[in-house]
C-alpha cells in the first residue's frame, strides 16, 4: 500500500482513539462533580485540562471550572485547536484519504459518528445534553473499532490501524497517570497506605477501569496495586503492557509481510525490555513521573520509526 495511505490509516485511528479517551476523561470528571464536593470537582477539572494540555488555553477565556464550561471547551470550542470535534474531523479527513484501504463499514461508522457529533455539538453543551454528546463519541469509536475487527482484511492496513490505536491509547494512559501521579504518591514509603476512596476512584474512572480493578483486586485499594494494574496487568485493555503487546504483534506482522525488520521493530524491542524488566517498586523508586516521561519519549521514538520505515511521507 501507499506510504501516504498508511499514514492516513495510522492517524485516523490515533485521532479516533484520542477522541474516545478524551470523552472518557470528561465522563469521569462529570461524575466527580455529581458525587463529590465543589472543591474536589474543581480539582478534577483542572487536572483534566492539564492532562489534555489545555489548561492555558482554557484559562485564557475562563475563570471558573464548571463541568459544562470545561466540557464545552474541550468538546467544541472554536478557541480550542484540539477540540474533540476537530479530532473527529481529522479522523474523518484521514479516513477519506485512506478511503480505499478501509472497508465501507468502517467508513460509514466513522462518517455517521462525525455527522451525529456535528449535529449534537452545533450548539453549546448544556448539562442536559452533555451525556449524549460524550456517549456519541464513545459509540462512534466503538463502532469503527468493531467494524475494523469484523470487516477488514488482516493485511498492512489493519496493522497500521491497530498500531495507531494502541500507540495512542498507551500515550493517553500514561498522560492520565502522570497528571494524577501525586495521588499515586511517588515515594515508596506510601506504598501499601490506603488511599482516600475518592482519589483512586478518579484515577480509575478516567480510564474506565473502576469495575475491572475491583473485580481483580477486591478489597485492596493501594497506590501500589493501582499503578501495577494500570501499567502491568495484561488483562486490562488500557494498561501499558496490554498496549505494548498489541503494538509488538502488529509490528511483527508487518515485518513478516515485508520480509524484513527495521528501526520500528528495533525500537519496540528496546521499549519492551525497558518496561518488562521493571517492577512497580522499581518504578516508584525511580519516580513515577520520570518513568512516565521516559515512556512517552519511547512511544514517540517508535511512532517516528514507523513513519520513516514505512515511508509515510516523501
Amino acid at each position, binding site marked *: *500500500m*501507499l*506510504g*501516504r*495511505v*498508511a499514514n492516513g490509516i495510522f492517524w485516523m485511528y490515533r485521532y479516533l482513539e484520542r477522541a474516545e479517551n478524551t470523552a472518557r476523561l470528561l465522563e469521569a470528571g462529570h461524575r466527580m462533580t455529581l458525587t463529590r464536593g465543589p472543591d474536589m470537582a474543581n480539582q478534577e477539572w483542572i487536572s483534566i485540562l492539564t492532562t489534555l494540555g489545555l489548561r492555558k488555553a482554557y484559562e485564557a477565556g475562563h475563570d471558573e471550572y464548571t463541568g459544562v464550561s470545561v466540557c464545552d471547551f474541550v468538546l467544541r470550542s472554536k478557541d480550542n485547536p484540539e477540540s474533540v470535534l476537530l479530532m473527529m474531523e481529522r479522523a474523518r*479527513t484521514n479516513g*477519506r*484519504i485512506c*478511503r*480505499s484501504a478501509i472497508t*465501507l463499514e468502517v*467508513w*460509514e461508522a466513522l*462518517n*455517521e459518528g462525525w*455527522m451525529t457529533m456535528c449535529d449534537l455539538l452545533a450548539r453549546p453543551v448544556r448539562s442536559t445534553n452533555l451525556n449524549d454528546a460524550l456517549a456519541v463519541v464513545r459509540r462512534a469509536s466503538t463502532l469503527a473499532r468493531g467494524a475494523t475487527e469484523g470487516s477488514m482484511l488482516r493485511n*498492512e492496513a489493519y496493522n497500521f490501524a491497530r498500531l495507531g490505536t494502541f500507540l495512542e491509547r498507551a500515550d493517553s494512559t500514561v498522560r492520565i497517570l502522570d497528571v494524577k501521579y501525586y495521588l499515586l504518591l511517588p515515594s515508596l514509603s506510601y506504598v501499601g497506605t490506603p488511599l482516600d476512596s475518592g482519589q483512586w476512584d478518579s484515577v480509575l474512572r478516567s480510564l474506565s477501569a473502576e469495575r475491572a480493578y475491583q473485580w481483580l483486586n477486591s478489597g485492596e485499594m493501594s497506590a501500589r496495586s493501582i499503578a501495577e494494574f494500570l501499567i502491568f496487568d495484561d488483562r486490562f485493555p488500557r494498561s501499558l503492557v496490554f498496549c505494548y503487546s498489541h503494538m509488538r504483534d502488529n509490528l511483527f506482522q508487518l515485518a513478516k509481510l*515485508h520480509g524484513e525488520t527495521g528501526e520500528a521493530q528495533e525500537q519496540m524491542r528496546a521499549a519492551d525490555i525497558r518496561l518488562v524488566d521493571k517492577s512497580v517498586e522499581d518504578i516508584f523508586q525511580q519516580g513515577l513521573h520520570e518513568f512516565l516521561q521516559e515512556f512517552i519519549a519511547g512511544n514517540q521514538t517508535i511512532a517516528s520509526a514507523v513513519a520513516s520505515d*514505512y*515511508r509515510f511521507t*516523501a
Partner: protein
Amino acid sequence: MSASEPPKFDEMHASDGSVRDAYSGYQGWLSEQDESWMRSKSAEAEGFFRKTGITFNVYGEDDAEERLIPFDMVPRIITGGEWRRLSKGIEQRVRALNAFMHDLYHRQEIIRSGRLPERLFRNNAAWLPQMVGFTPPGGVYTHITGIDLVRTGPDDFLVLEDNARTPSGVSYMLENRETMMAMFPELFSKVKVRPVSDYPRRLAKSLAACAPANTQGNPTIAVLTPGIFNSAYYEHAFLADQMGAELVEGSDLRVVGGKVQMRTTVGFKPVDVLYRRVDDEYLDPLTFNSDSVLGVPGIMDVYRAGGITIANAPGTGVADDKAIYSFMPEIVEFYTGEKALLPNVDTWRCADPDSLKYVLDNLEELVVKEVHGSGGYGMLIGPTSSKKEIRDFRVKLENDPENYIAQPTLALSTCPIFTKKGLAPRHVDLRPFVLCSPDGVDITPGGLTRVALKKGSLVVNSSQGGGTKDSWVLDD
C-alpha cells in the same frame, strides 16, 4: 417559454396520459404503494447518501464544503429495444472519436480532405503538440467516454456533448442503483433491470487491456486524484476501491528508472496504467503547467517512451470542444464510412458570419454556449433569460464570436420526479459511460440520468442545482 412551444416528450406518460410500455412494470408496482410511505422513503434516500459520504465539494462555499447531489427515486426507464439502437450509435461515435484523435495527431487526413478547417484545432488549447506522431498503447485515446444524450421524441435521441477528457458521474450511476435496491428490493423482483454493478470490474479489465506492451504479469492500475478537496474526490476513491487499484496523488508518484513508480510502504513500485482524474495541463510540470503540484514531473517522457498508459490519453480534450462537436456528423462519416446513427443537435458556429447574424437576430430563442465551456457555466438560455441578460450576452458574443456556438432550445424530454404533491415532470438528459480498449467498446446499460429539479428548467448540471435518477435498461 414562447407560445410556439413544441410538444414535449415525457418518458413515462404519453400525451393522452397513458403509461408508456417502458414504465408499465414500474407503474404496476407504484400503484400498489402507499403515498405517505413513498414520501418517507424519499427522506431515507438522503440519509443513505450522507452516510455513505457520496458528496461533491463546491468551490468557494465556506459553510457547505460537502454537498449532496439530490437524488430522485422515480427511475428513468429505457426499453431493451431502445437501448440496442442507442448503443449502436454510441459505439459508432466512440470508434469515430478514437480514429479522429489518431488522425489528428498523425497524418491529419480529415484536414487534408478539406472536411475540417485547420484553425479549429490550431487555436484549440486542448490540442497538444507533444502527442503528435505518438500512438498510445493499444491505439486507444478515449478509454472512458461519457456521451451526453437528450431525447425529443419516441425515436429521437440526439448527442448534446462528447465528454472525452475525464467524464465524471459514474459513481452516481452505481450508487443510485444501490440506493434503489436498498429502498425498494421487491420492485427489482417485479421488473427485470439490466445490472450496472460490474462497471468497476469492466473498467479495470478494459484499462488492463490497454497496458503498455512490455508490461510484465498483471498490470498495476492506479487512479490519480488531485486530492481530497477535489469536487469529485468521492468518485475517485470509490472507483479505486471498487477496482482494487491504488488511489494516488501526484506526490506519491515519481519517475524512477524510466518508469512511473508509486511510494509504497515497501519502497517504489511501478505503475502500468494510470487512470488520471487530473486535467492535461496539471499532468506533468516539466511539460505543461510548471506550477502544478498535482502531477508527476517527467511522466510525459515515460509515456512517450511507452512506459505507462495514461487514461484518457493527453490531448483528447479536443473532442470536448463544441466547435469540433459541430463537425461530428462529418467526422463519423469520414472515419466509419457510415452516416452517423445518432444525430447532433443543430449547431450554429458563430465564427461563421452568416451564422452569427442568424444567432444575433434570434437570441431570445437560442441556447448559446462557450466553445470551451462546461458545467452549464457561461451559457445563455434565450427563452428563460431577461432582456438585460440577453443584451449583456449580445455584447460578449459580438466581441468574440469565435468563442461561441448556438443551438435551438430543445424540448428535452421530461421524466416524472417525486414531489410533495405527487409526480411532476422535469427535464432530463442521459450520460452513458463507454469503455474502449483493443478488446472492443463496452457500454454499461443505462448511465447517469441528470434531472433539472426546478420546474421548466433545462439546466441539469449538478453545479446548477440539478439532481440525478437511477437509469434502467429493461432486460426485455
